[in-house]
């Protein structure tokens, strides 16, 4: 059975915009794959139809059956990870075997504080 794994350096979960996100992808394929893609993605979930976008891709053509590949992405300024009432936005690094589509993912938080921004429904009165 194919095994795919994404590990983030020092197992960090929180990152700031503009930081360098580094880690390594590990795989053990049960059959050769055309390519492996390590993707930096964000995804939404909640009440609306899920959205997703691949921000950056690191492609490995004709990969070895078993290997470890380091990766590094410069994180953009936005969008930041947040959770409201209708939408949760999550960042992740995922590894996808092509053409089968088998994948694994490691989620992380991107925000100025390194913590998920929580949008509360209460009015924010400051005056």
């Amino acid at each position, binding site marked *: 059975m194919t095994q795919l794994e994404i590990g983030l350096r020092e197992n960090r979960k929180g990152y*700031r915009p503009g930081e360098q996100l580094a880690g390594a992808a590990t795989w053990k394929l049960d059959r050769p794959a055309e390519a492996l893609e390590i993707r930096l993605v964000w995804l939404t979930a909640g009440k609306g139809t899920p959205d997703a976008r691949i921000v950056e891709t690191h492609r490995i053509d004709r990969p070895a059956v078993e290997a470890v590949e380091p990766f590094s992405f410069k994180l953009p300024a936005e969008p930041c990870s947040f959770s409201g009432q209708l939408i949760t936005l999550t960042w992740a690094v995922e590894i996808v075997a092509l053409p089968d589509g088998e994948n694994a993912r490691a989620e992380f938080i991107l925000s100025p504080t390194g913590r998920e921004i929580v*949008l509360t429904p209460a009015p924010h009165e400051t005056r």
Partner: protein
Amino acid sequence: MRFRTNANPKKPPGLPAKLGGSLFFGVFLAAGLFFAGLLFLHVKQIAGTYRWDKIPCFILSSEADVDEKADSEKDRYFVRIRYRYEIDGRALESDRVTSSPRSYDTFDKASAVAARFPPDSRAVCHVDPANPGTAILVRDSLGQALFLLLPLVFIAVGGGGIYSMWSRPRTPATGGTVKSTAPPRQVGAWFGWIFVAVGGVLFYFLTLGPITNLIAARSWDEVPCRILSSRVQTHDGDDGDTYSVDILYSYQVNGQIYRSSRYRFLGGSSSGYAGKRDIVERYGPGTTHTCFVDPAHPEKAVLDRSAGWILLLGLIPLVFLGVGLAVVVASRKSAGPPPTRAPIASGPTSLEPKTSRLVRFFGTLGVAIFWNGIVSVFAHNLWSDYTHGRLSVFEALFLSPFLLIGAGLIVFTGIAFLQLFNARVTLELDRPLRLGDATELRWTFRGQTHNLRRLRIELVGLEQASYRQGTSTRTARREFFRQALVQADDSRAFVTGRIEVPVPGDTVSSFDFGSNRIVWELRLRGVVQWWPDVDEAFVVPVLPAAPRADAILPPMTL
């Protein structure tokens, strides 16, 4: 006062409603087909003359004249031209100017035709090759084919209405969230352009033409003229007769006698017999007055070169033009989601309201005119039946929903109209809003500010999530941020002001994910006593926090 309109889901029409609606639209379809048919035959006949042979001819005599025996309801000026032409060695004569005999309501029009073919001149006539004895001097314009557009509108309305009655229904939305629909932009634009075309044509003939003449006539020569005849001309109308002034006068320029019947530049008839009678009495036959003559074209003259209140009719085409343009502009606005991040200027930014009041008003007005214009025909007949004691209850019941809708549209139009006169507000930001930053917001009211009683400006952040499943789309909205920036009851603080808008850093910036969005708005509400409130919303992009000066960030320890 606050007015809200809610979009209520509608049930698909049942069979009786379908039949009734088909009957209603069938009237339009039948009328359109009938008139289109008549017009088509007429245009076909005109087109036939364009295949006739062009033969040189000699003008024997040419003059404009008055038919003294004409009924008061008919145009009594006509052209008398006789000409000679040769076919296969045979000399033939004809006095036929156009395909069908034509008379004119003013002497000037008849004179203009006669002037094109002066006596003892050579011209070209058009001879029917199948019948050389039939010839005309002037072919009717094929531009009349454009009038086919008018019955086509009725055919489109009637056919489209019947089709929509019987085409498969769209099951209405259910649930508490808003159903996302995109307006029929193509149909809206089409109707808009029709209004623009009609307005443009009317504007040219009712406004631009007469005003141009009025301005030019300021430099015309003042020439003595003698009144040959004067009368009030009566025109039959369905709603009663209308009247116009018909004065024929002669004048002399450079030894040549001219005749004209133009009283003012904008002719036409209207109700009100007394005023016309006074004019006719003032310009009695045999009296001498001063007329104004175009020095470059002495055959053009006018008795009264003042504007007259009837020129106000020239404002009507502006309504059609405005409605049409508003509908076209509104239908061109994108119905899809805005781009993820539109280019944002770095300096001061003026904000535009989400919906223009003018577009809202003209859009409502256009729909109200269109709807009530059609319904009024039937309402008028119904009223006429009622006054004559032959009212049909079925007809009245059938028409009543349409009348109610028309009344509702008039009310909405009235509200939108009143809102036009509300004070207008412009908002300007010193620089784009950013998370964790404060920006100065300036507002300025212009117009009717004296009746503003309360002002509230809020910064609102919204989550928008659209869910598609199957064939329908729902959109849910939730506010996650609301901050009152201005709450003023003192009208002195309304007209203009400025305030610092702090945006917290622990929230999210504007973003369009696709089906999900983060939207920020500045909402402004001005409470107006005994008048619709000023209620505007301005979408304002909120940018992420400014990047930090130090490029290398220390790692986070979590």
